[in-house]
């Protein structure tokens, strides 16, 4: 087995690959940006993708949010009990959900469901020359295919995070009652107390938009750069999912830092 563990080689491979990927994504971002500025995107494609991505992700987002909310309560409960402040359970679970866990987990699930799917579709179209067919019909593939999908992904992530936060808080409130005996009213009071503010909500929502941009860019870039038939599409999907996950956490740190 010649491919034994070599941390230096792995790190070098990782860094070069990273630089190349970021460069490609930058180019795509520029192409999307120019067309967005002129509001140049296909409306039918946009609504079709909003339905496919947003509406059809609802079950997954709801399930994830419910369980995540409940889990947050389980994690926060011992800490809050230690300080003898059961009434602060809403705060303990709440700030975690709104600022971090809500946006991150929603983004991870959407990246898995929507991002991967989008890459597969774009990849298959690239491999079967449908992109060239668009150009031959004098239709700009970026404006027709890419921009609507990109915008749909960002908006999907924003709205999904919005209702995911709400559902997670509901799940947390009832888990609080079931596991710790904290009444939902107390939970709700803690959420609206002085320790939490609208900043916690907007913080999470701003993150969700930035995550959406990251996932959208990764998905579209890898989708369009596919080569090598069906296995190439598989590789691109894998790359999208990995890049989105890494991007989400890296971006999350910097945004948290900036938005303190």
């Amino acid at each position, binding site marked *: 087995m010649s491919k034994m563990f070599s941390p230096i080689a792995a790190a070098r491979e990782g860094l070069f690959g990273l630089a190349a990927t970021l460069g490609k994504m930058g180019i795509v971002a520029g192409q999307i940006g120019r067309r967005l500025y002129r509001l140049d995107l296909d409306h039918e494609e946009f609504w079709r993708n909003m339905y496919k991505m947003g509406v059809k992700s609802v079950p997954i987002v709801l399930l994830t949010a419910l369980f995540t909310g409940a889990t947050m309560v389980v994690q926060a409960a011992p800490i809050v009990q230690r300080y003898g402040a059961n009434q602060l359970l809403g705060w303990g679970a709440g700030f975690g959900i709104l600022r971090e866990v809500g946006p991150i987990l929603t983004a991870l699930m959407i990246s898995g469901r929507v991002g991967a799917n989008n890459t597969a*579709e774009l990849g298959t179209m690239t491999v079967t020359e*449908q992109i*060239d*067919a668009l*150009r031959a019909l004098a*239709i700009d593939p970026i404006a027709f295919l890419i921009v609507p999908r990109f915008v749909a992904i960002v908006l999907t992530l924003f709205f999904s995070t919005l209702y995911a936060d709400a559902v997670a808080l509901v799940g947390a409130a009832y888990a609080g009652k079931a596991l710790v005996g904290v009444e939902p009213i107390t939970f709700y009071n803690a959420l609206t107390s002085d320790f939490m503010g609208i900043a916690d909500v907007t913080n999470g929502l701003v993150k969700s938009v930035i995550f959406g941009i990251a996932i959208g860019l990764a998905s579209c870039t890898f989708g369009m750069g596919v080569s090598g038939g069906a296995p190439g599409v598989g590789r691109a999907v894998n790359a999208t999912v990995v890049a989105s996950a890494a991007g989400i956490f890296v971006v999350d740190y910097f945004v948290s830092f900036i938005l303190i």
Partner: protein
Amino acid sequence: MISFRNVSKSFGTKSVLSDVSFDIENGEVFFIIGASGVGKSVLIKQLVGLLRPDGGDILLDGDEVSRFDEQAMYAVRKKCAMVFQHSTLFDSMTCLENVALPLRKHRGMKPREALAAARDRLEQVHMHEFGDRYPAELGDGMKKRVAIARALTLDPRYVLFDEPTTSLDLVSARRVDKLIRELADSLGVTCIVVSHDLNSIFGIATRIAMLYKGQVRLLGTPADFKGTSDEIIQQFIQGRAQGPMET
């Protein structure tokens, strides 16, 4: 009128076209023939800017399209349509929607108008019954006809056909040939066909150019080809395995 002047194209170290020159007159059915991999598709893709030549010029109605950027090519592509080898319909749209797309985008038609106009176009190629089907549900011959209908939506003056009969059964292939001939005869559309289907070549061609080793080996009418004493050309048009031709 279309002119190729000293066109050359390489991919890496592999030279595909070295010095290709010929003209195509208006209203004719012009065949570009040769063995697989000789560069026929590469040549016609350069006409609509899907590939760029390394050297030489390509003129279409007097414009040097080889120099055009992507934006300028849009105007050319409305005049010169292309039917791809694998039909290349959009999987996510029905046949009607496929044909309606150029009408929506370039004639500014509302969706309902465009779909109605698309139905008319599909009738012309006898595919109107399959309008609501998706491409994945159709056979190759049917997809090809839908692709031709889509290419004709903007009433182009030129249509490029990349191996239109290659994956078709004999009956479908002859139907496609008939369509192409009708386009040229009744609508005056200049049809440029890349092919190695001998039945098509000698069935409907006005003139033929044969590519071999990066250059045009012979340019002439079907009769010229049948009567030539060139060994290599005779081997190709008679479909013989043995002979001087290198592939």
